[in-house]
């Protein structure tokens, strides 16, 4: 997986300058956040469901080796082929080989973060295979060479006038209306041809059931089930953490996911398939790509519980200001801040664990109870070990030394009072005072007052 190209503060600064983006994002995230709160509020056993979700995923990860083999066996028994991919290159090669073996130079794709993570479309293009995104938002991004800024609504940063202009330039010459209905119709007409012509479909997966080899996807548009049913050959790429042990476990996740994600009681389309029927071909690619490294970290591994609902993005005060592109990865927001550094290596994304005020809103809504603030703290410690500059280390060491004795602390307070008028424009304090006043230090500290009392 590609590491962020720049540090979070630098990327955030650029994104924050886009006032329109901030207004759009705020409106959109507030809307989804409120919808979620309503449908979660009507569930008396929501907290029990969260506990169950967490427990199932914890069990899965504790015995992942066994569950993966069980899943492989079940898929094969149902007539599917299973491929193991250590990294993006191996996974992409499998998809390209399958497409080539069927003489396909076009494939249709449903929305899949995992295939975004491995940059499948670019890899297929190198083999002369054109992958068409069939999710409405993903299609918009693909047509414009743009990339996702939200897990659920990838084109949240685009507005409909921009989309109309884009369609006019690409798939629907002459379109004048920017009515969502007309834009959707234009996409439908374009995609219908693609669906009917494609010999190979590519999907991700929301869940894979170890017990039965069943794969489950949930979606809103119905394009996913077109990808999985119209072409004769289907390739499903899923991260190894996407399994659940038993079919009955889906009962928990199919309650947790739609309510947390779109704020719906149930999503419009849920597709489940097990193996392949005669005349069809199913290939399942099990992707590691850094996940076993995450698994080895006993605090960080809970990031692998994630079911990609994006509830944490919608409640995050940082995400709702900066948007997803600031995170420099296909996994934005709080979950991205703990997942990306673990997948690409902490030294390659050292600023991401610091992209949070530790407000804890993400943990509160996470349907599988990932304690994101605790993982952030853990990764911050790892980031400091890997990357902190000498000046910062020395400064933090000095402050710790100063706090380890009352007389030193008192001396530091007196020094700070003297230095105050000059220090405001220097170093870290300058970052504060650019937008905020700093309360002047009172003439007397509490300790000084207490002694005189």
């Amino acid at each position, binding site marked *: 997986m590609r590491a962020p190209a720049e540090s979070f503060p630098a990327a955030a600064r650029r994104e924050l300058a886009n006032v329109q983006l901030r207004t759009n994002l705020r409106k959109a995230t507030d809307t989804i956040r409120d919808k979620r709160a309503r449908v979660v509020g009507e569930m008396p056993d929501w907290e029990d469901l969260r506990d169950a979700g967490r427990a199932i995923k914890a069990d899965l990860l504790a015995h992942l080796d066994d569950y993966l083999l069980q899943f492989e066996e079940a898929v094969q028994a149902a007539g599917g082929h299973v491929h193991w991919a250590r990294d993006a290159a191996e996974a992409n090669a499998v998809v390209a080989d399958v497409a080539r073996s069927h003489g396909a130079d076009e494939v249709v794709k449903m929305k899949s973060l995992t295939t975004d993570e491995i940059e499948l479309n670019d890899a297929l293009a190198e083999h002369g295979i054109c992958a068409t995104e069939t999710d409405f938002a993903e299609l918009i991004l693909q047509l414009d060479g743009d990339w996702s800024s939200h897990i659920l609504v990838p084109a949240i940063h685009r507005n409909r006038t921009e989309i109309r202009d884009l369609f006019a330039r690409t798939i629907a010459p002459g379109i004048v209306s920017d009515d969502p209905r007309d834009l959707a119709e234009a996409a439908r007409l374009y995609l219908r041809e693609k669906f009917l012509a494609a010999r190979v479909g590519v999907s991700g997966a929301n869940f894979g059931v170890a017990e039965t080899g069943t794969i489950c996807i949930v979606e809103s548009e119905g394009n996913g089930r077109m990808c999985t049913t119209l072409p004769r050959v289907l390739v499903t790429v899923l991260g190894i953490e996407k399994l659940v042990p038993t079919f009955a476990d889906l009962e928990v996740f199919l309650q947790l996911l739609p309510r947390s994600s779109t704020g719906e009681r149930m999503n419009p389309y849920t597709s489940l398939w097990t193996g392949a029927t005669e005349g069809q071909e199913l290939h399942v690619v099990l992707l590691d790509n850094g996940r076993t490294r995450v698994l080895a970290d006993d605090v960080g591994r809970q990031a692998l519980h994630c079911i990609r609902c994006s509830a944490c993005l919608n409640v995050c*005060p940082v995400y709702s200001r900066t948007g997803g592109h600031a995170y420099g990865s296909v996994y934005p927001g709080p979950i991205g801040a703990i997942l990306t550094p673990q997948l690409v290596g902490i030294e390659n994304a050292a600023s991401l664990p610091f992209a949070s*005020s530790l407000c804890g809103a993400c943990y509160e809504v996470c349907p599988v109870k990932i304690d994101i603030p605790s993982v952030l703290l853990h990764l911050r410690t790892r980031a400091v070990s890997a990357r902190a500059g000498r000046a910062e280390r020395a400064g933090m060491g000095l402050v710790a030394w100063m*706090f380890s004795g009352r007389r030193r602390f008192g001396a530091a307070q007196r020094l700070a009072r003297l230095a105050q008028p000059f220090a405001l424009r220097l170093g870290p304090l300058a970052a504060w005072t650019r937008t*905020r006043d700093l*309360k002047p230090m009172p003439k007397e500290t509490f300790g000084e007052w*207490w002694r005189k009392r």
Partner: protein
Amino acid sequence: MRVALFVTCIGDTLFPEAGRATVSVLERLGHDVAFPSEQTCCGQMHLNSGYSAEADRLAARFRSVFDGFDAIVSPSSSCAGTMREHYGVENVYELSEFLVHRLGVEDVGARFPHRVTYHATCHSLRVTKVGDAPQRLLQGVDGLELVELSRPRECCGFGGTFSIKNADTSSAMLADKCADVEATGAEYCTALDGSCLLQIGGGLSRGRSGVRAIHLAEILAST
């Protein structure tokens, strides 16, 4: 009950008025308050910045300084939360939860005839989990008109070193918070944490707002 005040490093240095007010409220309710003079910092700054070894040492120091008290009371939900929820020192309380949940007091005999809005700090909501203790206390204050903030559960953007390391994002969050505070028409914005009040107060002051940031303890100490 032997009650110790943990004033916190930021309270000691920048918000001594909140510490004095905490003492005044507790003494008014008939408690003897001790101030263990060796106290400095709980270590949260180091913990949150990725220096957990230094934080652990400061937390251990905290334990020995505050050993032997029945209750440790602090005018900060964030620092109290670090010691209790992260380091497991069970008898540390933020002031409002100590008054309402431990002592069962909702009327501390205060008078503050002003329009006030309350900002629920993140750690008071999600770490210390003080519930509605602050609102109950504010409702018990004579003459005080409590006006609700829109988006009352949203972070002000402080976040410790986040406010420096990610100053732009922090400032964007603060701008929205200040606008929400202004929109209430309140004279004062109160909270349980000096750190968040430093941020909100700094933003209001830079924006030449008439609204003042004030610690809850100061309101409770007013008569």
